[in-house]
């Protein structure tokens, strides 16, 4: 057995994050007199510092840790990204947590543990490591969704999320085990879905057969197809739960509605991004040769997801549920990127991966903006129905403007991130031979404009109602977070070239044969 060289230097960010999260939890338990805000701001500051250091020290490292974690540009991109989202979620949640939650140390600590899981997930290039990272993320999120433990909605959401999540993990794991059975390996790069290489390895271990004997006994291409299809279906179903693709989406609206708002933001942004980062790496590094078997399956799911998410969103009255369905719709657009991996050449597959990550980043920035604005509103009013936003343009014009910007961006209107990123992902779909998916995507984005406009209408057309109609102000840290996010939404919308190039350089890592 080879001695595996463990280069711990490669995973310092993960190690630091794990220790930092532990320290925050412990610190909050020990120093009970310290106001809770301190832990929040400390966590956010720590994450930002870690983010900057990671970005500075790990670009173009392109190595791997014991062949289970890749530390390449793709990993670094997502490390930076997840740390950023976690920082925003914490920053946006400080006041919320102070007003409405208890056990603040655990709250911030769990967000960071979930982030740790996400970072590892994006880096994994080995099935078991990926599974463990996925569970680290999911377990932290199960607890966080139910964190508001006196609220029945929060309990319900958490329970549903836990049960369905555990079920989906089981499906996923079963799929992985079949994949292992067929291919004889858990390392992405070694997986050969035709099973021939695995058969050869096993035969060699069994005894001294001649090469000719082994070759005659190997499965002919296509023999293991049924097993691979079962494995793929289970894997897609499991991942479908994690990204909330139709028909595995039922937990989403309840979990979103029940979770404390900052967690809804984190779940819808980082949770999704992590699942997609993993999805993309698994399907391009390991399963691309079997693309013909899965692309139709994911294409159907993508179409169903786009249509269902956007149509059901039309009927929602609660802002969180609306955003849940809108995010399901967005998952549909993102899945198009996975489908489009199935192209003639690696270069075209990489175009699809780049488009997917670009849309993912743009969508997540926009979504965090929406939720940060909603948190600011909720902190003041404690309400989250769509009609509660009535007259917001008079009560807090800046918040109404930023929320409108974010919603227009989600609808894919120009100037904002959504336009540029959707344009690219649909164009890639069309160029890679899936014009029909682009057609569905554009059509349902048009439907989505309707429900976003219904929200904007509440803010701009009507007068404030109820007993609380006064103007209110948004605290400075919150305003700062909103400003940065809005800047990001405009930047991606108006000049995405640098980001696009960075993403292209990182997705190149997923296609070593390129």
């Amino acid at each position, binding site marked *: 057995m080879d001695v595996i060289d463990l280069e711990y230097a490669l995973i310092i960010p993960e190690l630091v994050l794990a220790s930092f999260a532990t320290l925050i939890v412990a610190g909050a338990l020990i120093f009970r007199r310290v106001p809770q805000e301190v832990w929040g701001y400390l966590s956010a500051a720590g994450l930002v510092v870690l983010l900057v250091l990671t970005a500075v020290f790990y670009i173009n490292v392109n190595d791997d840790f014991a062949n289970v974690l890749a530390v390449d540009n793709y990993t670094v991109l997502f490390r930076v990204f997840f740390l950023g989202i976690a920082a925003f979620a914490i920053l946006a949640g400080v006041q919320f947590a102070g007003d409405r939650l208890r056990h603040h140390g655990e709250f911030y600590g769990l967000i960071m543990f979930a982030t740790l899981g996400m970072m590892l997930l994006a880096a994994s290039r080995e099935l078991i490591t990926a599974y463990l990272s996925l569970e680290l993320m999911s377990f932290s999120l199960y607890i966080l969704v139910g964190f508001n433990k006196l609220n029945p909605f929060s309990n319900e959401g958490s329970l549903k999320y836990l049960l369905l999540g555990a079920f989906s993990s089981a499906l996923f794991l079963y799929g992985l085990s079949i994949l292992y059975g067929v291919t004889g390996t858990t390392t992405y790069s070694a997986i050969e879905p035709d099973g021939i290489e695995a058969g050869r390895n096993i035969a060699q271990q069994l005894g001294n057969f001649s090469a000719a004997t082994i070759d005659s006994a190997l499965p002919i291409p296509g023999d293991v197809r049924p097993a691979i299809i079962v494995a793929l279906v289970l894997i897609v179903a499991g991942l479908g739960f994690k990204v909330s693709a139709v028909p595995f989406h039922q937990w989403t609206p309840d979990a979103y509605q029940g979770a404390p708002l900052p967690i809804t933001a984190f779940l819808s942004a980082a949770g999704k991004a992590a699942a997609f980062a993993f999805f993309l790496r698994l399907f391009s590094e390991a399963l691309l040769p079997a693309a013909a078997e899965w692309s139709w399956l994911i294409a159907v799911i993508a179409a169903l997801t786009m249509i269902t998410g956007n149509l059901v969103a039309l009927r929602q009255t609660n802002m969180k549920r609306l955003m849940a369905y809108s995010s399901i719709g967005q998952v549909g657009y993102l899945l198009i990127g996975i489908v489009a991996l199935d192209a003639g050449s690696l270069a075209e597959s990489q175009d699809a991966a780049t488009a997917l990550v670009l849309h993912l980043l743009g969508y997540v920035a926009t979504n965090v903006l929406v939720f940060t604005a909603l948190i600011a509103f909720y902190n003041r009013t404690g309400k989250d129905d769509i009609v509660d936003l009535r007259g917001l343009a008079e009560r807090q014009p800046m918040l109404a403007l930023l929320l409108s910007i974010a919603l227009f961006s989600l609808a894919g209107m120009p100037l904002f991130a959504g*336009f540029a990123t959707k344009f690219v992902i649909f164009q890639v779909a*069309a160029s890679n031979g899936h*014009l029909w998916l682009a057609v569905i995507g554009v059509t349902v984005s048009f439907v989505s404009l309707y429900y976003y406009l219904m929200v904007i209408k509440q803010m701009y057309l009507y007068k404030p109602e109820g007993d609380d109609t006064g103007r209110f102000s948004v605290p400075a840290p919150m305003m700062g977070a909103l400003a940065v996010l809005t800047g990001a939404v405009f930047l991606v919308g108006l000049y995405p*070239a640098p980001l696009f*190039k960075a993403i292209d350089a990182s997705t190149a890592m997923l296609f070593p044969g390129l």
Partner: protein
Amino acid sequence: MNDVGELLLVLLLIPGAACLLTLLTPSRHDQVVRVIALATGIAVFVISIIVFAAFDYSEGGFQFALRYVWIENVGIFQENGISLFLAIDGIAAPLVLLNGIVACAGVLVSWKIDYRNKDFFILFWALVAGVFGVYISQDLFFWFFFYELAVLPMYLLIVVWGSTNKEYGAMKLTMVLVGGSVLIFIGIFAVFAEAGAGTFDMAVLREVEFDKSFAKTFFPFFMIGCGVLAGLWPFHTWSPDGHVAAPTAVSMLHAGVLMKLGAFGIVRLGIETLPAGTDLWMPVLLVLGGIAAIYGAFSALHQTDLKFVVGYSSVSHMGFVLLGLGTMNTIGVNGAVLQMFSHGVMTALFFAMVGAIYDQAHTRDITQFGGIIKRMPLFVIFFGIAGLASLGLPGLSGFVAEFHIFVGAVAEFPFWAAIGVLSAALTAVYVLRLLGRATLGPVNPRWDGLRDISRWEMAAGLMLIAPIVAMGVWPDPFVDRIASAVLELPSVDEVGGSLANLPVVRGG
């Protein structure tokens, strides 16, 4: 060739800067907002005149080209993948001028807006920038970017500052227009994928020989997608509802400029990019345009709300534009572009005047008015000029444009030419009836308190009348520029040789 430096970029930056400046102005300083708006309006007006005048028609082609690469050589994008590529041809030149004029006039009539005028002007300038962008972009991505940008602010502009049934009108308008852009979107994806050149540069895409069946399949995506915005029958119903709901300046921009984007899009995306699809589809466009012309005229005949009359007359006049494009011969297409300009200024004048009277009378019901000329003589004169231009009185712009269209149509589609002439005659009926009922006749004492139009409205009116008269008596500057581009359009037949040999057409 004349050189205007980076004026085309400036044309985009000025409204953009006005947006930002207005955003940064505290909302209590509403006078400052107005001053910024006026300065911006004058600036775009002047620049659009310079651009129009500097366009060298003897040279033809696309001029004043500027290119700022946005993204290239990465992912699906190859050289010049997406670039802010600005240039105008003889078709865009008069439309840029039109937008400059209408935007400036729109500021003048919006002077009196005092409810959240800051927000109003932010959206207003976003809209204006979007429209300029569409006219001058030579890159499919940015073309569509600006196209959507021009549609986007309409919803809020109507919902917040509009009147009659504004929620319905605004939502209908937005959804129908964005629905149209869904088709354009799909067409763009298909064209980019099919061309395989890795660029959205229109100059490159124009050179690509698209497969005939591909062109025939995707031409209607552009034709109908853009046509919706041009009030293409039967997708026109958003237009009267939207106009009625919109505030004055928005109606002006909307009918005056925005609807032209649709017809312009058919030229840019349809005829220029997919010429192989024109054989099959342009006759369809001609028929739909003819139906819109006559249908709009009949509908206008039945309306009693001033804005509905003007709204349906817009449908009818845009029908002429589509009819002219559908002829696919030089005179007809020339006429279509002339009509875009002519209808733009004329309908903006109409809406400015309707707004002026509505602000005082709080009604637009024709049957309620009577003898207004005694109280508001200037109003009646301005309104009358718009009406006469609309019915095609020789000496005003409408005549020149419609004459071209009918000459073009007679050559190939005499039946539809006749339909067009009939609708023009109907226009005369409803316009004269409207003028007679509302402005002449016995004085209704209810309107004793009416004062004549304000000096802002008068300034706006004069700004709009000037081009109506100018084009009526001296169409050469327009015809020369437009013809220089129309003659280069693919698959447009040349009728009557060079237009320069047709003094009757040139002289009006």
